């Protein structure tokens, strides 16, 4: 291999590596495989709300940006702004756990009924008036009351 070929070879190798790296960095969408991610902690929806209302900072340190599993009773299912959202009852009537479901969950969500007990896995983002969980999936066959 002469010098010129070597340089060309190195150049293209470098380009390929950089390109590959850039491709993966830019195309990996976070939380695409939430079902494959391990759950950091599990909690009941009423308990989650009461923890956030008692001390938002300490609840944030436990739950914020963590993969959590929440068990709760369905309060409402909404399809506002083309999002599929399941709201779970909190410990009071003003606050709930707001679960933004992944697009592939839509068929399952349509079958949900108010008052039904469900288990949802997602990433907790924090608390406003409701606890907010994104990238959610239903993780069991819902049990009917």
């Amino acid at each position, binding site marked *: 291999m002469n010098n010129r070929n070597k340089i060309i070879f190195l150049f293209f190798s470098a380009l390929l590596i950089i390109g590959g790296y850039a491709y993966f*960095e*830019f*195309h*990996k*969408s*976070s939380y695409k495989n939430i079902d494959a991610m391990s759950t950091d902690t599990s909690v009941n929806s009423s308990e989650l709300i009461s923890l956030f209302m008692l001390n938002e900072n300490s609840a*944030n340190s436990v739950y*914020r*940006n963590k993969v959590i599993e929440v068990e709760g009773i369905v309060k409402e299912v*909404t399809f*506002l*702004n083309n*999002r599929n*959202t399941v709201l779970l009852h909190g410990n009071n009537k003003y606050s709930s756990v*707001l679960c*933004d479901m992944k697009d592939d969950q839509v068929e399952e969500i349509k079958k949900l009924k108010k008052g039904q007990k469900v288990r949802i896995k997602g990433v907790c*983002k*924090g608390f*406003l*008036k*409701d606890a*907010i969980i*994104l990238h959610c999936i239903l993780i069991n066959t819902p049990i009917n009351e």
Partner: protein
Amino acid sequence: MNKVIILIFLLINFADFETKPDQFIARQGQISFFSYTSVENIEAKNNQVLSIIDLSKNEIAISMLMNAFIFKKSLMHEHFNESYIESDLHPKATFEGKIKDFDPLMDGVQTRMIAGELTIHGITKEVEIKATIENTEGKYLFTGDFEVAVKDFDIKIPPILAPNIAKNISITFRFEYQPYEK
């Protein structure tokens, strides 16, 4: 004569008592932002924005979690939260303001100015935002768009990425309010 006055007085009072609740809530408001440059376009959406309007004072309050913005690319999400907005230090952005000349009882569409304080990245600025307000059967829909300058909120963008991020970010909002029962 006195009876007539009392009757009119009572009628007015009863008409007043019939009014709807003063507070309305949107738990799933939507805020999107766009950054257009020749290098790339960046778009993010937050569908869990909280807002409450108080019609007795024509006040509006908005609060959102900065880490709940969804980007098309995860690297953008990471830069936004870790480098620009620093959402660990400043988890929320808020707005508190007054809706000028707003008539909550008027049906249909009205365009109003909302003046108030916008806080992003821990920096508070006075802003005035134009909103289209639609009142259908006692439910309110607020929509509109405005721009914010990145430099106003002390957001540091490394020089190497400066061409990728617009100086002014356009923001659109959509809030559907429902009566907030106390």
